[in-house]
């Protein structure tokens, strides 16, 4: 839960490379205007594949397996010594991180001089680039391969590359828990700072967006086949039919309030706590009753001594899948059934699509932006609400309730 109340762990910097914008300003505008980031796409040059849309990243060209051909927006300086061992989403991550450090007023060189800054990353690695390197290795019958084949592709790739480039010495850890990965990164960052082990943790969630990162989810029948953006990603709507895939990167600077104050930084907000439970139900499907989600929310309210009526807004994970959204809706409804006023609930994936492991980082950052700018993220594409939650239909100014 994010609160403006004074606490020990604050967020002082944000960076975005997302389907709805590549800067704080662009993202804020898209959230306020309910502007989605979807484009029509064709996978593997096969028009018969029934997945028509993706939440694309604009201004980048990272579709080649050869880093020499990659392009990114002006203003970011990526040395060859860095990008040669990075995956496509490493470029996104570098740009988002650069924004977040600048936003927090942190000079990147200063991180080399301390051992109190850690880096926590979430990424599924790059099946695209891994496939290329393995193909090369087979072609050469194992006699040669890229020396960067490992560090540019596996799920620790962001940690290896960004940790070395920025001289991170306070800890460097990766999180691999599927769509919860970057949420876990934020949670464990909060723990590390509260325990006094570090002063600051940079959290990054990032993912490729290409045939290899998307199509395996089509095989699971988890993607919407709609070509109309309004129907393709419509969390909590009765016509939802699966998610729209996305990628990109989001970076957050979490630090102790003392650390932020030492630079005169103005935090976006305070993270008061976190909690985790698990379903123990199915490797790919959530418990239909949402019992794990309910247990987690109740435990978090207890852990942070927060009453139901202090909650103004709830950003749902809801990806627009039939079962996942229903699970969340049931859990949210049960937890808030005793609230005097039901909180606003929305899923911003209606606009962004689902960027897999970076979801938690992205949506935490959205909530912080919304709190700072004074609006509630709306529910785009919501026409026929499924039974439980009272989702808001458009951005609106928060009422007098004290926290967001």
């Amino acid at each position, binding site marked *: 839960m994010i609160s403006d109340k004074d606490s020990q762990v604050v967020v002082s910097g944000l960076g975005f490379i997302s389907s709805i914008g590549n800067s704080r300003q662009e993202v804020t505008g898209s959230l306020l205007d309910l502007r989605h980031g979807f*484009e*029509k*796409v*064709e*996978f*593997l*040059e096969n028009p018969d594949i029934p997945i028509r849309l*993706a939440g*694309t990243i604009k201004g980048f060209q990272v*579709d*080649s*397996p*050869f*880093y*020499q*051909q990659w392009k990114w927006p002006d203003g970011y300086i990526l040395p*060859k*010594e860095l990008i*040669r*061992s990075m995956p496509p989403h490493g470029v996104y991550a570098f740009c988002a991180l650069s924004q977040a450090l600048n936003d927090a007023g942190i000079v990147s060189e200063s991180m080399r001089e301390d051992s109190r800054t850690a880096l926590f990353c979430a990424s599924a690695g790059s099946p*695209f680039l891994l496939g*290329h390197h393995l*193909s*090369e290795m087979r*072609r050469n019958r194992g*006699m*040669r*391969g*890229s*020396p*960067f084949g490992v560090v540019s592709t596996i799920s620790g790739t962001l940690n290896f590359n960004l940790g070395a480039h920025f001289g991170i010495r306070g800890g460097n850890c990766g999180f691999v828990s599927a769509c919860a990965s970057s949420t876990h990164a934020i949670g464990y960052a909060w723990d590390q700072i509260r325990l006094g082990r570090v002063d600051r943790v940079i959290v990054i969630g990032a993912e490729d*967006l*290409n*045939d*290899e990162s*998307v199509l395996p989810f089509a095989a699971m029948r988890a993607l919407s086949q709609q070509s109309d953006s309004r129907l393709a990603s419509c969390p909590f709507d009765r016509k939802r039919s699966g998610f729209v895939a996305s990628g990109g990167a989001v970076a957050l600077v979490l630090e102790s309030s003392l650390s932020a104050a030492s630079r005169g930084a103005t935090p976006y907000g305070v993270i008061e706590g976190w909690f985790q439970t698990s379903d123990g139900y199915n490797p790919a499907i959530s418990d239909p009753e949402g019992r794990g989600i309910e247990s987690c929310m109740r435990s978090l309210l207890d852990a942070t001594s927060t009453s139901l009526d202090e909650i103004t807004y709830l950003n749902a994970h809801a990806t627009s899948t039939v079962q996942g959204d229903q699970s969340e809706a049931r859990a949210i409804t049960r937890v808030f059934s005793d609230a005097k006023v039901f909180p606003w609930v929305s899923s911003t994936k209606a606009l962004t699509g689902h960027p897999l492991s970076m979801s938690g980082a992205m949506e935490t950052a959205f909530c912080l932006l919304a709190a700072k700018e004074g609006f509630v993220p709306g529910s785009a594409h919501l026409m026929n609400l499924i039974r439980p939650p009272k989702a808001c239909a458009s951005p609106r100014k928060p009422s007098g309730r004290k926290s967001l």
Partner: protein
Amino acid sequence: MTLSANTSDADPLEQKLAAYPESLRDLVLAFRKNPNDASVDAVVCGILRYHSQDTFDQVHATHGDAMSLFEHLSMDSLTMTEIAFEAEDFLNIILSNEDMISIKTLADLKAFVRKAASQASGTSAS
């Protein structure tokens, strides 16, 4: 729009070469037309020029073929491996791990690549 480059049908080496500067591609094409020690050396220098951010010519003018790849061009071991694999791909040769480890100077690199090129063609490249 498409999300990944279509690389399934094209020759892998041509795809790789296309990612490099035109000046280096021209040197590789010249080698393929006329493989000899001079064209081998030109490709080696072209690869080093690409990796040294164009400081190669300045260093070469000062130190000649005795230039240290590590001290004068600031190459690290990963870059050296990358250079060796590029030379293998572009010149269709194989460098042994023992050769790669013992390469310290431009003269070493040229000598090992020339030897490998002559072995690959069955005759002296020159």
